[in-house]
C-alpha cells in the first residue's frame, strides 16, 4: 500500500463523518416540512360497534363511539385531532377532540350515535390528525351493521 492510499484511507472516514452530518441536516429539514397523508379504512367501518380502523403504513387509528363519546385511539401520539360529521348536503360540523390522559387517546361528545342508531344507516365522517408537523386526513363512512 503506497503512501497516497494510506492518506486516502485516513481522510475517507473524516469525509464520511462530514457527509453523515450534512445528510442529517438535509433529512431534518425535509422532515420539518408539513406533509399530508391520507388514511385508508381497513374493511368495513362501524364506529358504533367499534370496528373502524384507518391505516397508513405503520400508523393506525381506531375510531369508536361509546356512551355518546366519539373516541380516536392511534398507534402514535397525536398533537391534535378533529372529527367532522358531514351531512347529506356536504355540510361539515367540526368536533375538536380533547386528549384523555395520554396523546394516544382523544375524544369528544357527539350526536353520531343518534345519527346511525339503526342497522343499515351510514354517515360520512372526516378526520384530521396532526402529528409532528404533518397531518393525517381521512374521509370515510361509518355503516351500522
Amino acid at each position, binding site marked *: 500500500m503506497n503512501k*497516497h492510499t494510506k492518506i486516502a484511507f485516513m481522510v*475517507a472516514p473524516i*469525509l*464520511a463523518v462530514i*457527509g453523515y452530518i*450534512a445528510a442529517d441536516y438535509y433529512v431534518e429539514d425535509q422532515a420539518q416540512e408539513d406533509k399530508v397523508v391520507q388514511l385508508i379504512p381497513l374493511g368495513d367501518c362501524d364506529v358504533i360497534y367499534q370496528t373502524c380502523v384507518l391505516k397508513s403504513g405503520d400508523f393506525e387509528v381506531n375510531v369508536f363511539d361509546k356512551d355518546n363519546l366519539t373516541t380516536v385511539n392511534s398507534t402514535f401520539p397525536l398533537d391534535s385531532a378533529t372529527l367532522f360529521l358531514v351531512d347529506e348536503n356536504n355540510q361539515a360540523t367540526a368536533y375538536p377532540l380533547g386528549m384523555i390522559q395520554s396523546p394516544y387517546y382523544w375524544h369528544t361528545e357527539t350526536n353520531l350515535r343518534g345519527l346511525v342508531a339503526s342497522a343499515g344507516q351510514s354517515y360520512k365522517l372526516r378526520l384530521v390528525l396532526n402529528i409532528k408537523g404533518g397531518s393525517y386526513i381521512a374521509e370515510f363512512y361509518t355503516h351500522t351493521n
Partner: protein
Amino acid sequence: MEKKTTYWQENLRLITICLVIWFIVSFGFGLLLVEPLNEFRLGGYKLGFWFAQQGSIYVFVGLIFWYGYKMNKLDKKYQAEDES
C-alpha cells in the same frame, strides 16, 4: 518550481474528480435521487436505498484505491521527468 506546481495541479484535479464522484454517489444517489432510483431494484433491494446503505461505501473504497493508483502513476511520471 513549475514541475511542482503542475504536479500539485494534477493532484488537485484528481482530488476534485474523487470528491465529485463521492458527492454524486452519496448525496446524489443516496438522498437527492433516491425516489427515482427506488423504481429499480438490485439484488431485491430498491436501488436508491441500496446506494444509501452499501453502494456508496463500495464506491468510496474503490475511489481510495483508484486515487492511490493514479497518484502512484503521477509520482512515477514526475520522478521520471526529474531524472531525465
